[in-house]
C-alpha cells in the first residue's frame, strides 16, 4: 500500500514541478541555516568531559572583600598564591590542582634551529588523573616529584614529534627557558575545547593553540617561569617581580578539585567557609566568608563560555526554519486542495479518511526528504563557510559528522510532515459528494 502512496506522491509532485522545487528549496535552506548555526552552537556548548564534569569543582575564595567584588557580589574568578597553596597543602578533595598558564620558549637540541614558543600550564601531579588526560607514552609525574620540585615535564605528542621525531621521547631531555627537564609523559592529542580547566586565562575559553608543555607547579615557580595569563590586583604588590606577585593578593592561579559525591561537596564547602572564618579571625579578611563552589557546567555557564552571538544566531536561524515551515504549509495547502476532485473520487470509491492522511503525509514526507537531502548539501557548504566568517577558535570546532547528518534529515522530514498536518487534515475533510457534484 505504501508503495502505491509513494507512486501517487511522486506523480503529484511531478505534475507541478515549480511548486515542488519551491518547497524543496524552502525546506533545504531553512534546515541548512538552522543546522549550520546549530553545528557552531553544539561545538561551543558541548560538555568537555560529560562523564565527569559534574564531579569537577572550581572553588572561589573572597580574598579581596567588598571593594574587590564585582557589582554582582561575586568573589574573584582566580586565586592568589597564598590561598591556592593553603588549599593544596590541606588537600581536602580526592584530587586537586592549582595551575597557572605559562608560555615559555623551548630551545631545540639542534643548534641550527631557532627557539620556539609554546603554551602550557604549571600544574600538580593530580591534574592528569583528575582530568583523565590521555597519554601516548609514559604518564604524569608523582606527588613526590611535586614535593621535590623535580625537573620533569609532560609534553604534547605534537611537540614530541617536532623535537624528537616519531620515537617514544620518554626519558629524553627538553630544554625549557634554558633549563633541562626530563620528559616523563607524552600526551595523546589532548586539546579539550573549551579550555575548561583554566577558562579565566583563555579569554573566551576557546583557543586555536595546543597546550604543549606541563611542568610541576613548584618547579616552574623555582625556575622563575612567569605566568602568562591574567593577573588581577586589588592592591598593588609591595615587592617587585614574580616573587612579589607570589607574596601579593593578586589573583593569577586557577584551581580545580574533584569531589565525587554530595557529601564530599558539602564537606568541601564547609572546609572553604571554615578557612575563610579562620582568616577572618586572624584578621586577614575583614569580612564574612563569601566563597563559591561551582561544578564545571555551572562554572562554564557562569563564565559565559558560550558566546551570546552563537545563541542569538541559533535563535534567529530557528526563526528562519519556522518561517520556512509556515511557507511550506501554505504551499502544501494550495497543492493538496487543488486536488479536491481527486480526493473526492478516491473517497467516493471507498478510501477511508486514514488512507487520505497516509497518502498526503507520505507526499509531505517525500518533500521533506528531498529538502533534507538538499539541506545536507547546503549544511556542508554552510559549515565550510563559517570558517572564513566566524573567529577561527570557534569556527574550527564546527564540523559535519554523522549525527549532524542524521539530525538534518530527521529535522527536515519531521518538520515538513508537521507542516503538512494541517493541509492533510483539510484534504481529508473534503466531502466526496460535494466534489463529485461540482464536477
Amino acid at each position, binding site marked *: 500500500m505504501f508503495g502505491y502512496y509513494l507512486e501517487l506522491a511522486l506523480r503529484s509532485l511531478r505534475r507541478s514541478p515549480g511548486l515542488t522545487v519551491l518547497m524543496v528549496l524552502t525546506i533545504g535552506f531553512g534546515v541548512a541555516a538552522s543546522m549550520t548555526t546549530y553545528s557552531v552552537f553544539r561545538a561551543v556548548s558541548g560538555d568537555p568531559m560529560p562523564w565527569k564534569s559534574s564531579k569537577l569543582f572550581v572553588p572561589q575564595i573572597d580574598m579581596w572583600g567588598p571593594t574587590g567584588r564585582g557589582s554582582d557580589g561575586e568573589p574573584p574568578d582566580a586565586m592568589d598564591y597564598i590561598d591556592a597553596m593553603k588549599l593544596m597543602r590541606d588537600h581536602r578533595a580526592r584530587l586537586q590542582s592549582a595551575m597557572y598558564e605559562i608560555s615559555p620558549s623551548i630551545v631545540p637540541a639542534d643548534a641550527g634551529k631557532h627557539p620556539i614558543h609554546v603554551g602550557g600550564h604549571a600544574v600538580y601531579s593530580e591534574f592528569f588523573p583528575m582530568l583523565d588526560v590521555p597519554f601516548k607514552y609514559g604518564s604524569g609525574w608523582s606527588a613526590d616529584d611535586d614535593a621535590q620540585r623535580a625537573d620533569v615535564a609532560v609534553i604534547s605528542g605534537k611537540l614530541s614529534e617536532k623535537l624528537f621525531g616519531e620515537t617514544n621521547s620518554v626519558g629524553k631531555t627538553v630544554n625549557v627557558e634554558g633549563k633541562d627537564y626530563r620528559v616523563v609523559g607524552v600526551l595523546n592529542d589532548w586539546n579539550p575545547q573549551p579550555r575548561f580547566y583554566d577558562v579565566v586565562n583563555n*579569554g573566551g575559553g576557546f583557543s586555536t593553540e595546543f597546550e604543549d608543555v606541563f611542568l610541576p607547579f613548584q618547579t616552574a615557580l623555582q625556575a622563575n617561569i612567569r605566568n602568562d595569563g591574567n593577573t588581577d590586583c586589588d592592591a598593588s604588590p609591595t615587592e617587585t617581580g*614574580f616573587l612579589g606577585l607570589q607574596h601579593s593578593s593578586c589573583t593569577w592561579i586557577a584551581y580545580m578539585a574533584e569531589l565525587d559525591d554530595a557529601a564530599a561537596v558539602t564537606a568541601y564547602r564547609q572546609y572553604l567557609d571554615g578557612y575563610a572564618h579562620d582568616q577572618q579571625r586572624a584578621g586577614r579578611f575583614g569580612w564574612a566568608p563569601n566563597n563559591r563552589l561551582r561544578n564545571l557546567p555551572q562554572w562554564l555557564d557562569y563564565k559565559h563560555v558560550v558566546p551570546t552571538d552563537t545563541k542569538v544566531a541559533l535563535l534567529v536561524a530557528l526563526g528562519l526554519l519556522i518561517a520556512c515551515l509556515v511557507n511550506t504549509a501554505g504551499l502544501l495547502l494550495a497543492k493538496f486542495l487543488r486536488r479536491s476532485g481527486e480526493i473526492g473520487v478516491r473517497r467516493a470509491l471507498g478510501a477511508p479518511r486514514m488512507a487520505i492522511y497516509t497518502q498526503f503525509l507520505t507526499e509531505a514526507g517525500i518533500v521533506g526528504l528531498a529538502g533534507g537531502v538538499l539541506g545536507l548539501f547546503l549544511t556542508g557548504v554552510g559549515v565550510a563557510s563559517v570558517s572564513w566568517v566566524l573567529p577561527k577558535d570557534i569556527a574550527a570546532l564546527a564540523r559535519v559528522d554523522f549525527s549532524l547528518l542524521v539530525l538534518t534529515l530527521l529535522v527536515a522530514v519531521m518538520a515538513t510532515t508537521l507542516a503538512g498536518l494541517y493541509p492533510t487534515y483539510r484534504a481529508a475533510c473534503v466531502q466526496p459528494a460535494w466534489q463529485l457534484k461540482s464536477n
Partner: protein
Amino acid sequence: MNMHPILAALRKHKAGVVLIALQIALTLAIVCNAIFIIQQRIDMVRRPTGLNEDNLFLVTQQWVNAPSGDDPASLEKLDSMQQADLATLRNLPDVASISPIRSLPLLRSGSTGGIGLKPLQQKSTIDSNFFYGDEHMLSTLGLQLIAGRDFTAADVQNKGFRDESRSPLTIVTKSIADKLFPHGDAIGKVIYFDSSNTPTTIIGVVARLQSPIDAGEGPLAWNSVLFPVRQDANFARYVLRAKPGRLADAMKAVSPALYAANPMRVLDDRSVRSFADIRAKAYRADVGMAILMGVICLILLGVTAAGIVGLTSFWVGQRRRQIGVRRALGARKIDILHYFQLENLLIAGIGAVVGILLAVGLNLWLITRFEMDRMPVIYVLVGVLAVLALGQAAVFVPARRASNVPPVVATRPV
C-alpha cells in the same frame, strides 16, 4: 476600488491568508532585528581607534633565558637588550619610526588601573588603560595631541614589568580629561594611580585612544593614559611605522634583523603583525555575526517572496474562470492586476501589523535574555516598508498572468 469582493474572496481562503500573513509577520520580526544587529556591528567596527592605522605594525618577541629583571643589575641588562633591539629596528631602511609599547588598541591584552584625584583615595574615580612607551610613542602611533606637550627623551624612565611605582608624568585621552576636569583645564593637574600617594602630573591630552581590552563601549573603552616608561621584561613589544607604501617590506625585514642581532629569542609567524591584521582579528566575530545575519535575512526574504508567488499563482489558477467572467463583464486588464495587488497589500498589511508586535516582542526578549540594546522604531518602519514592497514585487508576476486571462475563458467549462 471596492474592497468588498476582495474580502469576500479572502474569506474563502482563510487558511492560506493566515499562513501568508503569519509568514510575513515572522519575516518582519526576524529581518528588522537582524538588520538592527548588523547595523550595530557595522557602527562598532567603523569606530576609529585614534591611531593612524596605515603602515603601522607590531613586533612581539621573547628572549630565551632572559635575566629575571628582579634586581637592578638584571633590569639594566634587560633594558640594554631592549635598547639594542630598538636601535636595530630603527636603522631598517623601510622603518620610519619605532617605540617600545606594552599594548595596542584591540590587541586584547594589556594592563589597567584606577585613577583618583586625591592621594591614597580608596575607591578610584575612574578606571583606565595603561600604555607604556618612549618619547617616540605618540608620533609612531599617530595620536593627535590636542593640548599640552609630548614626552621628551628626558621624561623617559625604564622600569620592571611589575614595578607598580608610577611615572611622575602622563598624557591622558580627552575622554579622561573631560571626566576628571570638566572645565578643560587638565594640563598641569595632579592625579594618583591605584590608590597610591605618588602624584602624577598631566602634561598632555590626546584626542582619542581606544582600549586594548574593551573592544565595545564599556567604561574602559576610551579611557587611556600614556606613561613615558620603557618596560623591561623577558618579552618586549615594539610598535613600528613603515615608510609610506613600504609596510610589507618593513615587516619582512624585522625577523632576520632581530635574529642577526641576537639569535637567542623566539619569533614566530605571529610575532610581526600589521595593525590591519590586529583590527580584523578583533572584529572578526562581529563581522562574522553581521554576515551570518545578512545571509539569514536574504534566505528569509527569498523564501517569503517565493511563498507569495507560489500561493498567489495557485489562487490565480483556481480563479481563472471568475477572472474570465469579470473580464467578459467589462473589467480591464489593469483592474485584474490591481485586484491581486490590493489583495496582497491587504494580507501583507495584516502580516505587518502582527509583525510589528512580534518584532518588538523579539527585541524585548533579546534585551532581557542577551543584554541587547533597544531597537529604534525606524528599523520597524523600514522593515514594514520592506515587507510590503517585497509582497508587491512577488505578487506582480502571478497578478500579471491573471490579468492576461482572456475573457473567453468564461465561456469554457473548467
